[in-house]
């Protein structure tokens, strides 16, 4: 099976005021179907930039990113929206749930963008939330949930449109170690059981090793090391 993601010589530059920042300087990588890839590195090393590019939230300055044989660099804005809706699901360090909506509504909103029917949406949201142990917390607002619960809701939302790739930007960054372990376990479980490809950014190299197949280390916008873990696909 061909790789689900092929990035070739990706460059990304920002203008921050008068300063030009080279966030990515020629990154190339391939990700296989069903792979769990972790990216580690210091702050500002370009990890999140790469994830935003893969997620279709941003566009490359040069180079190409092919996901399921489609070049993101050539996509129109509306096509990128479709890509974010159908192909990828994103979770963030700060959960990014809509504060005025309940857990269920947050999950349903993503499906509403995906044009899933109302009844189906409700059913799927409830099943997803139940599967990650949040049956009792469905009608709670994000402010009424613990960090771990909020991140679970975010994961349920990311999975709601049945994406091919789950993009996790430091999903355990705001959580205590016990909860972090639970979230990592959940992601690993999803990867293993549902064969969802996961690309995760983390600071925690140790935990990354336990769940990932491969770890890329970033420094100054480049991949400086690639490590295969003992976990086999």
């Amino acid at each position: 099976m061909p790789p689900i993601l092929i990035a070739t010589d990706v460059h990304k530059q920002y203008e921050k005021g008068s300063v030009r920042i080279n966030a990515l300087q020629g990154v190339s990588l391939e990700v296989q179907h069903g792979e769990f890839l972790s990216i580690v590195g210091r702050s500002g090393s370009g990890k999140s930039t790469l994830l935003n590019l893969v997620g279709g939230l941003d566009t490359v300055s040069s180079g190409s990113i092919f996901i399921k044989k489609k070049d993101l660099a050539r996509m129109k804005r509306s096509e990128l929206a479709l890509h974010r809706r159908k192909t990828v699901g994103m979770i963030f360090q700060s959960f990014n749930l809509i504060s005025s909506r309940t857990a269920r509504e947050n999950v349903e909103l993503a499906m509403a963008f995906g044009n899933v029917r109302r009844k189906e949406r409700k059913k799927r949201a409830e099943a997803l939330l139940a599967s990650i142990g949040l049956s009792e917390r469905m009608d709670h607002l994000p402010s009424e949930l613990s960090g771990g619960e909020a991140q679970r809701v975010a994961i349920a939302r990311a999975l709601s449109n049945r994406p091919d790739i789950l993009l996790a930007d430091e999903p355990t960054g705001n959580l205590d170690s016990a909860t972090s372990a639970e979230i990592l376990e959940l992601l690993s479980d999803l990867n293993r059981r549902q064969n969802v490809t996961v690309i995760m950014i983390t600071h925690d190299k140790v935990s990354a090793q336990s769940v990932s197949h491969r770890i890329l280390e970033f420094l100054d916008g480049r991949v400086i090391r690639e490590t295969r873990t003992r976990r086999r696909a």
Partner: protein
Amino acid sequence: MKFDETSRITVSNLWRTKLRTVLTTLGVVIGIGALVAMVSFGTGMQKNITGMFETNDLFTSMQALPSKINMDEVMHGNMESLQKQDNKNVPPLDDRAMGRIRILPGVDVVYPEISFPVKIRYRGQESRTLAKGLPVEMGRYKPYSAIPYGRFFKADDEKSIILNPFLLRNLKIRLLEPGNAKKLSLEDSLRGLRSLPPDSLLGKEVELVTSVVDVSSLIQNPMFTFGLGRGVPVKETTTRLKIVGIDAGRGAFEGPYRDRGIQLPLITAQRVPQMGFSSVWDLLRSKGQQRGYASLYVRVKKMTHLDPVKKEIDKMGYGTLALADQLEEIKKGFVILDMALGAIGTIALVVAALGIINTMVMSILERTREIGIMKAIGGSENEIKTIFFIEAGIIGLLGGLFGLVLGWCVTRIANTVANFYVARQGGPHVDYFYIPPWLILGAVAFSILVSLLAGLYPAIRAARVNPVEALRHD
């Protein structure tokens, strides 16, 4: 995302910021309220004037005159134009001319306009008024088709008369009508008025007194008459006529107690001895004319016949005078009035639109992160634009509906207050405001349109939010 889903998101967004939504909508409500009140005043006035024209058959009637007249010059005081005869070959405006006009397509009634000053005597009381001759055919038309008491004439040579309440008051008679109090006011009692049911007057005889030049006295002593400037010697003749009907007192927009004169059957009027002129106009018009009538009243079947008939009469060489022409001018004036009134309302609405823009831009700033999240989970620019656009549309819809209610309330209050003062002056009840169906739909549509326009910029701005930056936003 489906439209109903987008609307649901929008409604919940608006509900979340209730106070702000209410205040923004209130701006639109006031704007639309002002617009509705202003425009309905304009249309109300127009309706009243047009209604008055219709009641008096001014859209379907005109005068044919012996010669062409230039109304502009007359309006500017150049009375000589009335005497000018453009074409010396024009035949006089006589019965033959009347026959020619009568057969024009669309013409329904033609008759010579006869009016002259008279005195009416009844039970020892006397009052001056103006008598007008009308043919039986006019009984088909307002106001003669709906004479409140009695009937219109049955024959042109009937010895009958139609009076009016104003004249009766001068004859010390007050009609006992359903609307009137049974008891006389102190003022009326002091003036010696009697209350009588209208029906009791029908069939009674009155004396119609007219003046004619006393030729015999003129021949006997011409020097005395003119030399000392005592005027032309006159002789009075009396004709006895039966009251067959009593006309309505007054209509809307007419002065409180204006005498509309009395009506006589056409031939009866022609037979009554009289001087032959009743005004300076008649005198001016008759100068240079040998024979023929001073003017003919021409009534056409439909409004659309007025212009072609007018042109035909013009072709014959006669002058025409249709008040409907003046109405066109009045209507133009109303368009300007409506625009001016509408503009005031629109200013209020523009201010409201700025309120909408402000509220929505603030809302976008507040919801930047939310917009970022929506984009991250697959919301397209169009969907996000639509969410904000519908938000503006809902504010417009609510503002339009409540604005309409506000506008209606304002017009009702203003109408009540205005009529209260008018009634104290003895004036009739008039609806000064009129909200036509197009205004109801137009106001709501305009409100939505203005709100959507106001929401356009914020919506585009929201759609363009950079998701990466938005997600970092606090």
